């Protein structure tokens, strides 16, 4: 029985408004909700505030399209298919984006705080680095720290009051409007089963006010409930579900398909300039929908990426994207 969580790709993108804060499932170039990212770009979404445990190809696509005003995270690139985020670098140089740098563990702990309803998290990472340079509080410099959705402070030092363990860093909970996940399976009522490493998906889903799950397949809820110990996220933590096969392409999905390295290499090589980005978006995003995007990629390419079900990756896709 469905309880009405199922929506379309277009509707999913429409839930995300101009100015929304957003986060995603996955890790760098794995399990990113690319089909929704492309739909956001088609719908010309603006002024987005990305808060990500780590960035990746999804960041680069959104930033290159001019959808993003603020990026809070720790890393962006395409792993071995593109060594840094060329679109973000360009926007930083042009001062068209605010970047707030945290460390990877700080970002993760910020989401664990939000996911457990705590206002902040405590950690001992990155002491002595410029991440804690008070001059480099970029949201503060921009006058955006209102203490509502954006914390009053970037971080705060404190001394351990309990065991005398010395300096600790408090980092604010990542308060985020919407999490968009991309997973292998979701049930009709929203139960999520992630196969392989689940990265920080449980934390980001729980932290966000609204969670949208895009899955390779929507499956009968009772199928997932037969083995509840294998499920990753509970039904009521999920607000909307979308079925979208190959929705993570060109990023990869454990057990389903590999990263399309050649696609990302080409994106990285050709989008160093805004003209290059615009041409790429014209060819691969605008004027297409998900099905025509897949048609353009073609079956031979998709079959080459398809994972061997025993190995969970594709032995046909040559590593390195050549």
């Amino acid at each position, binding site marked *: 029985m469905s309880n009405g969580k199922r929506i379309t790709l277009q509707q999913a993108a429409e839930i995300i408004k101009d100015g929304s804060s957003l986060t995603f499932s*996955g890790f*760098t*170039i*794995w*399990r990113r909700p690319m089909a929704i990212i492309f739909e956001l770009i088609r719908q010309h979404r603006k002024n987005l505030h990305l808060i990500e*445990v*780590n*960035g990746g190809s999804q960041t680069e696509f959104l930033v290159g399209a001019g959808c993003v005003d603020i990026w809070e*995270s*720790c*890393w*962006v*690139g395409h*792993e*071995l298919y593109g*060594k*840094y*985020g060329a679109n973000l*670098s360009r926007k*930083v*140089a042009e001062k068209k984006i605010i970047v707030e*740098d945290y*460390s*990877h*563990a700080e970002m*993760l*702990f910020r989401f664990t705080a939000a996911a457990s309803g705590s206002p902040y998290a405590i950690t*001992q*990472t*990155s*002491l*002595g*680095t*410029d*991440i804690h*340079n*008070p*001059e480099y509080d970029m949201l503060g410099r921009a006058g955006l720290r209102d203490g509502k959705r954006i914390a009053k402070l970037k971080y705060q*030092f404190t001394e351990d009051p309990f065991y*005398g*363990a*010395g*300096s600790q860093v408090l980092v604010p909970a990542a308060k985020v409007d919407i999490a968009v996940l991309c997973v292998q399976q979701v049930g009709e009522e929203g139960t999520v089963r992630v196969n*392989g*490493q*689940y*990265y*920080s998906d*449980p*934390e980001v889903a729980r932290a966000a006010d609204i969670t949208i799950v895009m899955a390779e397949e929507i499956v009968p809820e009772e199928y997932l409930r037969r083995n509840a110990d294998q499920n990753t996220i509970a039904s009521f933590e999920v607000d909307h579900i979308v079925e979208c096969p190959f929705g993570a392409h060109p990023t*990869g999905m454990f*057990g389903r398909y590999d990263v399309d*390295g050649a696609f990302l290499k080409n994106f990285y090589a050709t989008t160093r300039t805004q003209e290059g980005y615009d041409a790429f978006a014209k060819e691969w995003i605008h004027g297409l929908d998900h099905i025509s995007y897949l048609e353009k990629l073609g079956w031979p390419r998709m079959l080459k990426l398809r*994972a061997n079900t025993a*190995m*969970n*990756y594709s032995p046909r896709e*040559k*590593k*390195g994207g050549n």
Partner: protein
Amino acid sequence: MSNYASPEEYGLADLLCCAAAHEVKDNEVVFAGTGLPMVAIMLAQQTHAPNLKLIFEAGTLDGRPPEIPTSVGDARCEMGASRASGLYDAFSIAQRGYVDMGFLGGAEVDQYGNVNTTCIGDYLDPELRLTGSGGNPDINSFAKRTVFIMVHEKRRFVENVSYITSPGWRVKKWPGGEFVHRRELYGAAYRGGPSAIISTLGVFRFDEQDGHMYLDTYHSGSTPDEIKTQCQFDLDISRVKGATELPTKEELRLIHELLDPDEIFIPKTKKS
């Protein structure tokens, strides 16, 4: 006949990979990022450290990948692993103090081992924005020791890095930003710091008391004096031990036949 490879049999990437592998001890818990560090760790696993425990940042614990993963999010990471989980496990395990060693990289390094992967030039008006920190400062804060693999150029071995992404032995105390020994800041969480920088010219270590870098070994083809000229700070070359150990023929075979046959991270050198 020597087991060591002759100069025409190995490339610089082979030498770096083997030098990095030699830093690992058996039974250690090691944190590795994408690229050359993965190959180095898997080489150690295949040679002198068969019982090392490998952690990938994306959430694989005690992984035994049958072939080199393309990145830490790759499905290959978790084949044979004790557990495939997520970042919360990887980072809380690291912060808890389980990690003996981490392999890292960087764009710039200073004389105290502070590393920059964030930007070149003034942070507020950068010449070039780089990838950002990733887990570099976290692993460097949590592990007992860290090993960096870096390209050696004079512009990268600098007096002061543009931005301290990852903490060395003497770091900035905020709000003032004066340099203090990291022991002062980390308190009970102090476990160590960078133990080696393996560059394309030599292997560098640190005096843990005063926090300064010194040259430990130089790679075949370079000399201590030449290396000193390739640093913007005054490099201590008085403690140099000799030349860096060369790759063995067996190590080269493992790298190119078993670990990275497709030359994803390490190119093959001249062959017959």
